[in-house]
């Protein structure tokens, strides 16, 4: 069964299909969310919220595009919701290890973009990640990173400028 077929089965109220989808996607979604928030409890809650949301509205995925990308767009927003609700959001960055494996990067196909991103400071990188790679709005990115929306905008502008210079 493809992911899209699972979604069709979920729309018919089949919980076993939801379970299969959860088994396929919850691990990587959790891993990716853990790179956005260090609070495991909040990540776990966001994962559960995500699949309950899928159960509620499986038809929201209209058959276009990767189910994985669609699930991520739900999961990252559920994480932001949970972070907002928790009284003291503890936003920690995932640990950064110095060695950059350029060969891996090139193999993975990010190519120029990967190289360009290397030139960014961790702060600018975080904004690029939230706004460009995670596809969040300025407000959502501000909530996720715990910084004002104005800061998100200026950092994104600076990041774009640096990336343009590196590409030139």
């Amino acid at each position, binding site marked *: 069964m493809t992911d899209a077929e699972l979604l069709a089965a979920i729309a018919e109220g089949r919980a076993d299909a939801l379970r299969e989808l959860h*088994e396929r996607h*919850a691990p990587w979604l959790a*891993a990716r969310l853990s790179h956005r928030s260090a609070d495991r409890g909040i990540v776990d809650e966001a994962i559960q919220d995500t699949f309950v949301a899928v159960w*509620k509205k499986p038809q929201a995925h209209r058959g276009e595009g990767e189910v*994985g990308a669609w699930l991520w767009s739900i999961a990252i927003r559920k994480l932001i919701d949970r972070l907002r609700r928790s009284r003291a959001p503890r936003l920690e960055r*995932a640990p*950064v290890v110095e060695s950059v494996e350029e060969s891996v990067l090139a*193999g993975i196909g990010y190519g120029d973009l990967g190289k360009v*991103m290397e030139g960014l400071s961790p702060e600018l990188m975080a904004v690029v990640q939230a706004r460009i790679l995670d596809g969040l709005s300025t407000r959502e990115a501000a909530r996720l990173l715990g910084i004002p929306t104005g800061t998100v905008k200026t950092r994104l502008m600076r990041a774009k400028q640096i990336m343009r210079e590196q590409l030139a």
Partner: protein
Amino acid sequence: MSWHVDQDVLHRYQTGAIDRVVAASVEAHVTECAECRGDLILDEIWLNQSWAGIADRVEPGRPRVIERLLVSVGVNQHLARVIALSPAFRVSFVLAVILVMGFAVSASASDPNGWAFRVFLFLAPLLPVAGIALAYGSLVDAAHELTLSSPIDSFRLLVLRAITVLIVSVGIGLVAWPFIDTPSAFGPSAWLAPALALTLTTLALASRFEAWIAGAMVAGGWATAMALALAGDLETFNAGAQSVYVLAGIVAGLVVAVRRNSYDREGVGR
């Protein structure tokens, strides 16, 4: 896909010990590559715990008799579940209806002044209102999470439940009716018309307030009207009053239809 993420990189990504740029590449790839998703280290215990939390919120336990019955006659599985979870089929609700009807049957024979009948006429139309009011909101609805997570919008859910509540209470009422010693001028519509009017008014108010508040308001209004009516005779239920109920029902029905989009707001209409 022609290339895949190196296992070691994947696992370092999972433990968080990886550079941000590499992490971004891994993420972009894994989002679209089922094969690499399968290569992630799987924590079975975590997966089962995560699923258990979701199952609690989407599965209301074993399917009920009514659900299976509905499915067997061709009703869509999910719709059947939602209907089966309607308060109309809760033991407490059915018992309450039977109690009120039983009271009317037993008391009416030995009550020449018609007071038992008045109490019946007061209580019977409130039964469906109570059924609707007590069924929504997190305070009272054990299946609240399911209600929230069902793929049916709040408005259709509310109407669906109102209909099942009406069918069950009116059904039991009609069975009991021939055994109730009524003044000759009264037919079953004596309580059917106010029951419909009060139910529709509850639905209309539920577009603005929480269902149980809407129910309490209707019950309060009905009690006031009854208190005034009881000072006189049973005029409240004669033909003249009947047309008032029908009119009120139509107005409330129109309000429900016009405000149908207001039921989707959080905490309203549930």
